């Protein structure tokens, strides 16, 4: 399993051709208390960089962009009742959706954990 990060503060953990996508702990900290998460439709086809989900917080509604292209296989149903999981467990239980990758080469354009860490420090 390898975890990659985007400049828009999404993470994707990839195992085989299946990726799990969430927003980073830094992102949830910037957004503040999350009040609602709008998730993509299961089975929908998404293209890298598409706005596929919206995270509402007390401060703002923010688009979440999928870091890879593919088909959404599953969304995190627990977020309907407990959107705060994105705050408390951004890296784990607060994942947003799972996607089967249609082009694994897209991962090459993302950052690894160390690169993301220095990216955040540069902001």
């Amino acid at each position: 399993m390898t975890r990659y990060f985007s400049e828009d503060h999404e993470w994707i953990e990839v195992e085989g051709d299946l990726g799990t996508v969430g927003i980073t702990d830094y992102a949830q900290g910037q957004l503040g208390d999350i009040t609602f998460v709008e998730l993509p439709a299961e089975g929908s086809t998404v293209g890298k960089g598409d706005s596929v989900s919206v995270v509402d917080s007390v401060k703002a509604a923010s688009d979440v962009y999928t870091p890879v292209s593919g088909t959404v296989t599953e969304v995190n149903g627990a977020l309907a009742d407990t959107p705060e999981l994105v705050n408390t467990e951004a890296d784990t239980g607060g994942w947003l959706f799972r996607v089967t990758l249609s082009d694994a080469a897209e991962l090459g354009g993302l950052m690894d954990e160390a690169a993301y860490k220095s990216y955040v420090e540069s902001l």
Partner: protein
Amino acid sequence: MSDINAGGWRPSMGEAGDAKFTTFSGDYGLMLEEALSFELGSADKCGVDLDPADRAPVAGLNKFLRKAAPGLPGLTEPETVRHYTRLSRQNYAIDLGPFPLGSCTMKHNPRLNEKMARLPGFADVHPMQPQKTIEGALEVIEQLADWLITLTGMASVAMSPKAGAHGELCGLLCIRAALDARGEKRDVVLVPESAHGTNPATAAFAGFKVESIPATPEGRVDVAALKAKLGPNVAGVMITNPNTCGLFEPEMKEIGDAVHAAGGYVYCDGANFNAIVGKVRPGDLGVDAMHINLHKTFSTPHGGGGPGAGPVVLSEALAPFAPLPFVTRGADGAIHLVEEENASEGHAQAFGRMVAFHGQMGMFTRALTYILSHGADGLRQVAEDAVLNANYVLRSCEDLLPAPFADSGPCMHEALFSDAGLAEGFSTLDIAKGLIDEGFHPMTVYFPLVVKGAMLVEPTETESKAGLDRFIGSLRSLAQRAKAGDQSLHSAPHFAPRRRLDETLAARKPVLVWKGEPGIPGTPSLSEIGGS
């Protein structure tokens, strides 16, 4: 944050100010506590004298026959009057003090406007009255339309849209109709990051695909990025000018020319027209459509004062597609309403109708009163004073609160600050809540999104220098407390009718329906609403 109301349900006023005791009534001096109307009322009370309801039910209601009492509060007239008057005393309004909500232009509503709007000939007209009996009212609409056209340098105006966002929709539907008339299918609308939040929503609602244009580090539209996106699929661009960073877009003309050259149209969000009225004519900048919020620039009341009005001025290119109905002056000099599409008067291309009737008479009367009582020179001074006041706030606070675009030149009608540099754990929200303790309505917070912890302050031209100094003193004091890590700011407001409410819980588990007294059947328990 233990001082925050933890349960979310029925917060109480608690001890107000320095009070070290509680009162029997729950009121504190003349700061009056107030229950919900449902809790005050009972079914056996009524404000009017009705016949006993002892008749047999009307036949034929069948399943619509009510099986239980309707659940109305049941209040006498004095109870009703006191209820709303008490609530109004816990509110804050422009008539009580400065209301520096950025992007909203909360200026004083002159009382002359109200006096004119209440004249029976305007206040009591009915939209289905014969035209012959409302010629004066139609003339008000026509005169206002003429002023709006003159002030914006545009070809025509659609008066019927009911509000800013409704006006945006009107403008985009005109663009769609113009494209249809050209036989073109363009489906993309470009929206810069510095635009109003309603713009992308309007474009999506009108069936367009929205593409975002980044802002430059100076807080303006990235013109190169915008030009790169132009093409045969672009229907138009929606630009807010002055933008939501409080800055004028000096390259508007260049943007307009480029969009037109690519076959698109320019929509301008006129929400911030207050900063340029009498100084700049959007028509000269290549704008094809722009809504005008009469409740902002032209001082009609925001909310509460009745429905809004968002007339849309249109360029020559879009004018033929304006929605029905509208008021026009015929060749004979007589004013009449155009209610139907007709070729003889050149209205065959109207895209349709957005509302049943002719617009918002009360707002039209107020706006025209404002315009006529100011005159052209007065309107110009409105813009100048609004910009002067905003720059005074900007330059008076930028040493304590970072102003991200302070180096981009003078701001327009609003000053933008960020919460960078406050002590660890302190943010925009603490400053906003602190302003309530200081007796001000907070500024706009966390918008625009391009600035972290944004604080958008729009003082408007109707605040005096003494009033601005008082506000600036408060803002500076709060910034100093937040920089020094004053923990008491975390639990502000301390002196308002309610302490800091749990906004997260309110958003996650909203209680929207009154279901009865706490503790009795039908009432949500604290655990049900997420409290403890």
